[in-house]
């Protein structure tokens, strides 16, 4: 069967596209590793209109409920390869299923970036975590290192100040990229020490994490921090690996380059949300782009009569 469209991803962008496609009566499927994606991990959300104070999880639940009210049930699987032959997209999944469609919407978002240093994988969940709100409470009265220089690292620092005995924020840059208000708040915490110009080199331990080593860029020395936990918040990696490089739709960061209609240079291929090159990664923006991509697909199918 050749579907009118395949939506890859079931978070803010993908779900918004799906609602528009369904209302138009198109024959489409959604394939996603999970419903809600990164949105569900957003913690407290206070900037999504209509919801003065909610959590990413609650908002993701509402989105899912809305999607399912239209009878759309995403296929839980991972897309590993995408090709285009003639005018038809071929989508291959990890479970070895093949699906075909006339159009494609990529709304796969992003996942936490790794440091790619020794010990990071070995001590994952043995002191290494990418989710402070999940795992920080397990480090009550202990010492942790938070790696990063943006808002997530600063928020983790504030959280750690209330739970842990001591927290280090290890920032590879001389300044924070995060919001000034958060930097000020963290700076006031007596049990939080900020280390600037520090490049994390290694995470070590035995059964669990015992410490990290970092390069002090000021002195060019390798230094050691004894910590029980390491929380890594160094930004997000775009989930666009399955899109072939020869399509020439990705920029240097792996973001999908889209125009204001969320179209790409490949006819019939649209993208929405965090995975696009739009500079601001916000739930509200993903929703808007998802709608634009959905309407773009409808327009494309009407115009091309395929």
């Amino acid at each position, binding site marked *: 069967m050749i579907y009118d469209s395949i939506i890859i991803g079931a978070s803010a962008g993908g779900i918004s596209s799906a609602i528009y496609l369904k209302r138009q009566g198109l024959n489409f499927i959604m394939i996603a590793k999970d419903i809600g994606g990164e949105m569900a991990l957003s913690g407290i959300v206070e900037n999504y209109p209509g919801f003065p104070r909610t959590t990413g999880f609650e908002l993701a639940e509402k989105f899912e409920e809305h999607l399912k009210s239209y009878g759309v049930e995403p296929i839980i699987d991972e897309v590993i390869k995408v090709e285009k032959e003639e005018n038809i997209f071929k989508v291959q999944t990890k479970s070895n299923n093949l699906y075909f469609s006339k159009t494609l919407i990529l709304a796969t978002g992003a996942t936490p970036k790794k440091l790619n240093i020794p010990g990071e994988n070995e001590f994952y969940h043995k002191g290494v*975590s990418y989710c402070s709100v*999940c795992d920080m409470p397990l480090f009550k009265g202990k010492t942790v290192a938070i790696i990063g220089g943006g808002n997530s690292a600063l928020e983790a620092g504030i959280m750690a100040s209330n739970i842990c005995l001591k927290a280090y924020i290890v920032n590879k840059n001389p300044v924070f990229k995060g919001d000034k208000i958060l930097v000020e708040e963290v700076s006031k915490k007596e049990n939080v020490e900020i280390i600037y110009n520090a490049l994390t080199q290694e995470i070590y331990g035995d059964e669990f994490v015992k410490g990290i080593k970092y390069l002090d860029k000021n002195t060019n020395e390798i230094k050691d921090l004894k910590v029980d936990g390491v929380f890594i918040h160094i930004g997000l990696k775009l989930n666009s690996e399955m899109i072939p490089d020869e399509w020439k739709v990705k920029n240097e960061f792996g973001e999908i380059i889209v125009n204001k209609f969320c179209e790409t240079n490949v006819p019939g291929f649209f993208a929405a949300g965090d995975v696009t090159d739009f500079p601001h990664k916000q739930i509200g923006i993903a929703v808007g782009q998802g709608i634009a991509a959905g309407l773009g697909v409808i327009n494309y199918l009407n115009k091309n009569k395929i």
Partner: protein
Amino acid sequence: MKKIIIYTTSWCPWCQKTKKFLENLGYSYEERNVELNPEWGKELIEKSGQMGVPVTLIIDENGKEKLVIGYDPLSLKEALE
């Protein structure tokens, strides 16, 4: 009947997802929020050998234990069969 225990923390979205997943399948469970009781935290580390939540412990009729670490619907389904 199988007994299900989930080790959680208060703000962990994956814990909420795991609970919702089990509820949707009609299972009841006992929640052990490690923030509320440090003994549960120790128990979590002893049982799973790691320090992440959620962890779901499934104990069958014969007392045999199965562990699922993280939010992992496929492994949970398998462990509950």
